[in-house]
């Protein structure tokens, strides 16, 4: 069911997600994706929905197949997977990609061996297919895939790298200038690894993902300033004038807002929690500082 729906969606150029048996979009990492042995584009896994706090994702495939990692906007930082069964020897691949070209390819095996250069294909032209953003596309063959966590953290991977990796995986949700701005902001906030270690700051990937989801959902008129709280949460701020500020702090599960306008008479202030997908609970004038 999911494969057929996925194919239809792909061909229609609409949704890039498979559907689970209940008809709901399958979330990468939670629902197995299957596809028939009919050739052509048989399934698509959307890397825009990578599991949270899992910069690395393992893929298990049953049979031979081809893989495209596409990024119409720019680059995919890394893809990590493993192969099992279906006449292929177990194997692993780790590929780093920049601007559409493979930079590294480590530990290939089984059908994913790239000795012939044709099994594993990286392109940079999947715009129509995925509607923007990186995606892992499975072309041809038959079998099933189920994503699972390899680990939520990697000591060898810096906080900055993990954040950038998450941003890359979500770039299809954002406008180009937002991606650039977020990259710059993350670098400014997190590039000093020694300081991060000294401060024992634990940066929340879920919080960053909440911020990205918020930007994608509401399309703010102005890109916010970005900061980190002492708890490692990302906070986005808008200031319509120097004596007014609205700050949204993204917690792992939701978000909180606090706004102050010292110019208003009397001074306006407010605070509360809100659901990322809706700003209805946030009163004016604060809501109007973000969206029309």
């Amino acid at each position, binding site marked *: 069911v999911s494969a057929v729906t996925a194919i239809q969606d792909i061909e229609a150029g609409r949704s890039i997600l498979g559907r689970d048996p209940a008809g709901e979009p399958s979330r990468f990492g939670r629902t197995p994706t299957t596809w028939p042995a009919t050739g052509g584009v048989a399934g698509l896994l959307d890397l825009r929905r990578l599991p949270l706090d899992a910069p690395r994702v393992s893929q298990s495939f049953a049979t031979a197949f081809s893989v495209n990692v596409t990024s119409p906007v720019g680059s995919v930082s890394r893809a990590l997977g493993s192969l099992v069964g279906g006449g292929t020897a177990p194997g692993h691949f780790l590929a780093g990609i920049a601007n559409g070209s493979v930079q590294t390819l480590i530990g290939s095996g089984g059908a994913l061996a790239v000795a012939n250069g044709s099994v594993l294909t990286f392109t940079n032209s999947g715009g129509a297919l995925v509607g923007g953003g990186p995606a892992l596309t499975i072309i041809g063959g038959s079998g099933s895939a189920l994503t699972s966590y390899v680990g939520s953290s990697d000591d060898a991977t810096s906080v900055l790298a993990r954040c950038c990796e998450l941003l890359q995986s979500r770039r299809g949700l954002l406008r180009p*200038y937002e991606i650039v701005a977020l990259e710059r902001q993350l670098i400014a906030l997190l*590039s000093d690894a020694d*300081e991060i270690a000294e401060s024992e700051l634990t940066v929340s990937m879920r919080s960053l993902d909440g911020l990205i989801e918020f930007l994608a959902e509401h399309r703010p008129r102005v890109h916010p300033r970005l*900061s980190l*709280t002492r708890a490692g949460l990302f*906070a986005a701020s808008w200031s319509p004038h120097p004596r007014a500020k609205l700050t949204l702090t993204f917690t792992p599960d939701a978000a909180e807002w606090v706004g102050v306008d*010292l110019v208003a008479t009397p*001074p306006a202030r407010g605070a509360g929690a809100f659901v990322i997908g809706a700003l209805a609970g946030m009163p004016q004038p604060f809501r109007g500082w973000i969206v029309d």
Partner: protein
Amino acid sequence: LKGDPVPPDDHLAIHCQPSHLIEIDEAGEPSGVSPDVFRVDEEGISSNWIEFEKGDGFDAQFSKACLLLTFGRTVRASHRMGVLVVAQVTAVGTAANKSSRGDTRSLGGTVEPGSCADNRPST
């Protein structure tokens, strides 16, 4: 001096690290202080009172405040000093606390001697 109010037009210096307390704009440049600066704990908002420093003019006083900081803390090139007006800190702190905690007290700046020097106001 301990417990005396800090003049509302004077300035506070707050040591800011990129990983917290510095706000970054879309160009990747520090553009302000994080709202966490205004988060009031049991000790208020710990900072340094710039005008307390002896010196000829604000710049000289500010330089001394920065120098003072290096004695008590690790300071990196990426760190910044946030300069805030006392009155604005108290206004924002009061408003934020009323909003988030239902705390109706007004905040004010007073001098509380600290470990670096006797110029650390608790706001």
